[in-house]
């Protein structure tokens, strides 16, 4: 590399963000880890003395307390909320894919002059507040809300659907909020697809549907994977949507963490929940990376 040109103050460039991230990302994260393995009574603030011993690894290991993890494992509530989070995130991802793929495909097939405007239209809701988007659905889904009024007004249903505070409401809110994250990578992948490939497929005797299944779909797999990751990952840890649209039985893990922290003020337990949640998230990411590497190796 051009070492000569960057001798003087060049080392400051990585150093400044490096120090910032060490201080405000890595250290806090280490504290969470430490906290996850400590007792509730000693971990309540102020707990600075315990923090002081943090540097001594031996002491740290000796003081490890797996009670919190044991509690998490024993308490069915946490198991259920983890599984429930995965389920909701998975369903959200599938639904977003089912709605997002045709939309992205239609956008990519639209005349070039439209595409920019369509793209802006997809991104625009993302720029408005997350809370606003969820709030809009409250007005629609709540009892005597717009949806019920419309359906009953049209004579399609006789009585209110009572969607508010159900799993369906949570799913609608989640799909709605995360749809752009699915559409954008799909659109990017489908748009760069060479149209002449489809023409070649047609020239070789493939019907449009066969051409889609044998050419377009396989080539858009990277976009599908990226979109699914972008939806699934934040969906697992989502807190606001299940809290506002879900009922008392829709305890997702983000909500459990929030409750543990703010309502029960059990910081070590909240930390333990966070650690397990992170493990839960890292796993699919690693699998995705594996899949990508395998594809890269094959190509």
């Amino acid at each position, binding site marked *: 590399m051009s070492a000569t040109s960057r001798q003087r*103050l060049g080392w400051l460039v990585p150093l400044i963000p490096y120090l910032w991230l060490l201080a405000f990302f890595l250290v806090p994260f280490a504290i969470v880890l430490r906290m996850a393995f400590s007792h509730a009574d000693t971990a309540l603030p102020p707990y*600075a003395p315990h*923090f002081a011993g943090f540097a001594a690894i031996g002491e740290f290991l000796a003081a490890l307390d797996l009670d919190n993890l044991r509690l998490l494992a024993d308490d069915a509530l946490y198991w259920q909320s983890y599984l429930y989070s995965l389920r909701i995130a998975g369903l959200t991802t599938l639904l977003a894919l089912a709605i997002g793929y045709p939309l992205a495909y239609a956008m990519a097939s*639209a005349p070039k002059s439209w595409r920019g405007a369509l793209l802006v239209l997809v991104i625009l*809701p993302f720029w408005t507040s997350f*809370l606003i988007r969820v709030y809009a659905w409250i*007005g629609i889904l709540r009892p005597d809300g717009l949806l019920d009024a419309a359906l009953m007004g049209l004579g399609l249903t006789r009585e209110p659907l009572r969607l508010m505070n159900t799993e369906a409401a949570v799913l609608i809110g989640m799909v709605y909020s995360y749809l752009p994250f699915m559409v954008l990578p799909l659109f990017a992948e489908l748009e760069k697809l060479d149209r002449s490939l489809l023409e070649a497929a047609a020239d070789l005797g493939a019907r449009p549907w066969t051409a889609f299944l044998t050419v377009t779909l396989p080539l858009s797999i990277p976009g599908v994977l990226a979109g699914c990751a972008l939806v699934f990952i934040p969906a697992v840890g989502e807190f606001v949507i299940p809290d506002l649209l879900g009922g008392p039985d829709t305890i997702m893990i983000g909500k459990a963490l929030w409750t543990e922290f703010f309502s029960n003020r059990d910081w070590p337990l909240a930390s333990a929940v966070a650690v397990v949640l992170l493990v839960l998230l890292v796993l699919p990411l690693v699998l995705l990376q594996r899949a990508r590497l395998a594809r890269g190796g094959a190509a």
Partner: protein
Amino acid sequence: MKRLGPGLILALVAGFAFLYLPILALIAYSFNASRLVTVWGGFSTHWYGALMRNEPLLDAAWLSLRLACVSATLATVLGTLAALALARHGRFRGRTLFSGMVLAPLVMPEVITGLSLLLLFVAAEIERGFWTVTIAHATFSLGFACIVIQARLVGFDRSLEEAAQDLGATPLMTFWTVTLPLIWPAVAAAWMLALTLSLDDLVIASFTTGPGATTLPMRLYSAVRLGVSPEINAACTLMIGAVAVAVIAASLLLKRERMAGADK
């Protein structure tokens, strides 16, 4: 150019209806004279007047705006440095850890980021308030800003920087006179993104804030939990309007710049 089939048109219409109908309904009902969501009581700007008299909400909005500006600026500066480090410095010690730390906030659930930063502030006995939220927002937007700027740097012709140095510019001078002017659109986009992320965040702010620093999302959240109110609709409509104006202005500006570049 191939014409769109009816199936694809349906996909477009249905997709965009799903995206926009809820927002349009929300806007419509901010002008409803009636307090009831399902009853149209006639057009009224009553709720906007009420909103203007809602001091706590206005205070929170003002605080959020200041906070977002400061944290977005911090995140953009740090993100630019991080992007330069990743795109230009090649291999340096701890690069893997560095890029991991830059990118981790992108996949980190907000609850965890918020919790961990709160624990840090408590451990370090830092008084929580405006600055702790600012630091938290800058930290989690940094990664997003870095990605945006790095993408621009990767597509950047290195020989431009070499030409500047060849003509006698020091590395710092090269950055100011060549690199920065050319990555400027990405830097601006990164700042806008960081600003939006900050204005949008509820979870991290809830963890890291202290007394006297209640952000707009926090106020909205507690109001929304209590139920639907046209006053909130009015607040949301104003925010949507501001965003729409900003996005349209930005795209027009970009278009004009492109046109100016093309026909001169």
